[in-house]
């Protein structure tokens, strides 16, 4: 306890009184026994906005804005004898609440117990703090309510902060909880670390990087747009970085769907173009032959020549009729006119096809092996299946190699969850480098066979497409050809 004696008018005391009076810190001296203000300085006058002489004689309790705060102060001072920088609110003469830090020291003046009370006005600081808090709260709200996951890292790649979407991301995709202070790399498997450090390295040099990644979760693709942005300090050097993750699965899905439909439209357009080319080309070639024949017929006098021209005219009209029939066939497939779907036994249908082509098979002394299990049923249009099998088997026999005994095999396998039928032969083969884009085109023939009409593969492909399947070909000249039909 300090003892100050203000009554004796010596130099030291005068100086102390001056220090008290003109201190920039508001100071009050109150009497312990009744709380009456004994002395107040200039600064106290300013903050409380009551003249010093009016303050003196007033009870200090009037200054406390809140009774409970006063009670706490009283309890603490009686227990510990002093208070240092305790935050309280005082009420000034204008009834304004001012936030202050109060420090209290017990002293004795003229033998009587007093409190020396110093105040620091912190109301402005408080306002600033409140504003900062408010702004941080606002940012936090934005930070927490976005769909994008954010993780803030310092330059040592340790987590400083993260938001809810980020922690959801970590638990959902990696089954890991995010903790402040842990290192970036610990969240990823060992094998990914070198790759990740290559991503982070340029970011720490000030570059922004972003990429799209998918994570397979329960067989589903979850797509994320991941971005690393550097955080710069006042000196323009990198203090850390922000990693953001945005779930773009829905966008990606619609992108994929869009691409698929674009592919479909392109494919249909290509088919349409091919079709119109065929219609134009084939009908015109027959028509032009007819015109020429009729021109000759008109002028021809010899009966023998006339008869020969008539034979040719018949041939042309027969070909024209066949072309029209084929075109009609293609149109009806493409218009999906015949879409009855039944459960069909694949092996049985193959055996039927072999029986139908028995004559051709024996003529070439070919071996046809049906290796398809008898318990495989497919949902297909019966007429299409018949036509497809007949066509592929006919082709395999027709284009067999004269150098070896023809061997044709039917086999099934499972590919990407769908059934695939392969029909392979050891025949002439097709030079796919030359013909790949044309093999399923209409009226494309590759071997110069007299009876090659070039319509079979085109119709088969259309039928397979109509059943939402796929057909692929692999072949090597002089070795053989394999067609693979994927059922839906």
């Amino acid at each position, binding site marked *: 306890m300090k003892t100050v004696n203000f009554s004796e008018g010596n130099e030291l005391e005068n100086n102390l009184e001056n220090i008290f009076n003109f201190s920039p810190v508001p100071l009050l001296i109150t009497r312990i026994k009744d709380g009456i203000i004994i002395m107040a300085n200039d600064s106290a006058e300013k903050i409380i906005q009551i003249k010093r002489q009016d303050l003196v004689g007033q009870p200090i309790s009037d200054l406390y804005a809140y009774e409970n705060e006063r009670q706490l102060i009283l309890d603490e001072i009686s227990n510990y004898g002093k208070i240092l920088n305790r935050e309280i609110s005082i009420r000034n003469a204008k009834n304004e609440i001012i936030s202050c830090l109060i420090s209290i020291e017990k002293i004795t003046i003229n033998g009587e117990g007093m409190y020396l009370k110093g105040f620091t006005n912190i109301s402005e600081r408080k306002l600033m703090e409140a504003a900062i808090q408010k702004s941080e709260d606002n940012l936090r709200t934005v930070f927490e309510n976005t769909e994008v996951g954010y993780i803030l890292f310092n330059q040592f790649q340790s987590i400083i902060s993260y938001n809810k979407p980020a922690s959801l991301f970590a638990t959902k995709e990696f089954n890991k909880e995010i903790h402040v202070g842990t290192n970036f790399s610990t969240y990823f498997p060992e094998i990914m670390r070198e790759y990740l450090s290559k991503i982070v390295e340029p970011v720490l040099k000030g570059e922004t990087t972003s990429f799209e990644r998918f994570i397979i979760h329960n067989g589903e693709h979850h797509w994320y747009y991941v971005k690393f942005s550097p955080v710069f300090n006042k000196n323009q050097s990198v203090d850390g970085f922000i990693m953001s993750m945005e779930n773009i699965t829905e966008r990606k899905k619609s992108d994929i769907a869009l691409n698929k439909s674009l592919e479909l439209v392109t494919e249909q357009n290509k088919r349409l173009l091919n079709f119109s080319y065929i219609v134009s080309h*084939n009908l015109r*070639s027959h028509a032009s032959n007819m015109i020429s024949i009729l021109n000759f017929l008109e002028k021809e006098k010899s009966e023998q020549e006339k008869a020969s021209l008539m034979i040719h005219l018949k041939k042309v009209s027969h070909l024209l009729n066949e072309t029209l029939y084929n075109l009609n066939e293609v149109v009806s497939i493409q218009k999906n006119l015949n879409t009855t779907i039944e459960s069909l036994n694949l092996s049985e249908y193959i055996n039927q096809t072999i029986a139908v082509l028995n004559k051709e098979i024996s003529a070439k002394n070919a071996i046809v092996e049906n290796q398809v299990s008898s318990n495989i049923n497919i949902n297909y249009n019966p007429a299409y299946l018949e036509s497809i099998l007949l066509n592929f088997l006919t082709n395999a026999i027709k284009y067999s190699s004269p150098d070896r005994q023809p061997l044709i095999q039917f086999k099934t396998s499972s590919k990407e969850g769908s059934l695939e039928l392969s029909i392979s032969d050891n025949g002439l083969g097709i030079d796919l480098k030359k013909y790949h884009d044309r093999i399923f085109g209409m009226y494309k023939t590759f071997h110069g066979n007299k009876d*090659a009409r070039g319509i079979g593969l085109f119709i088969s492909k259309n039928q397979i497409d109509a059943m939402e399947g796929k057909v692929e070909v692999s072949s090597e000249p002089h070795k053989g050809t394999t067609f693979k039909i994927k059922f839906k």
Partner: protein
Amino acid sequence: MKTTDKICLIDDDEIYIFLMKKSFVAMGVNNEVLSFLNGADAMEELIKLKNNDEILPSIILLDINMPIMDGWEFLKEFRKLHSNISQKIKVYIVSSSIANEDIEKSKTFPEIVDYLTKPVELDTLVSIINE
């Protein structure tokens, strides 16, 4: 056109070949006519003629859509052959196709004199032969 000049027809349509030959007879053209059902057979014969130092056809009427070797592939092979001989050979495309892509593509071959669509009028044929 000299009587020694040969005419070459390359087309997989046998009726067309028959009709063209008949047209030549009707026009009084007595020149030798070589006909082939695809580009490969024609190419084989042309190479043979060249190797035997025989005269090659001075006019080739070429179809586009053919099996084994189509008109375009034939032209690529023909270019190699043509660059080794001094004889001038005129190639005409004679096709049923009126597709723009075919007509435009034919313009990229300097060997092609003209693109004719079937049926070829006798008058046109006369002017080609007499040119």
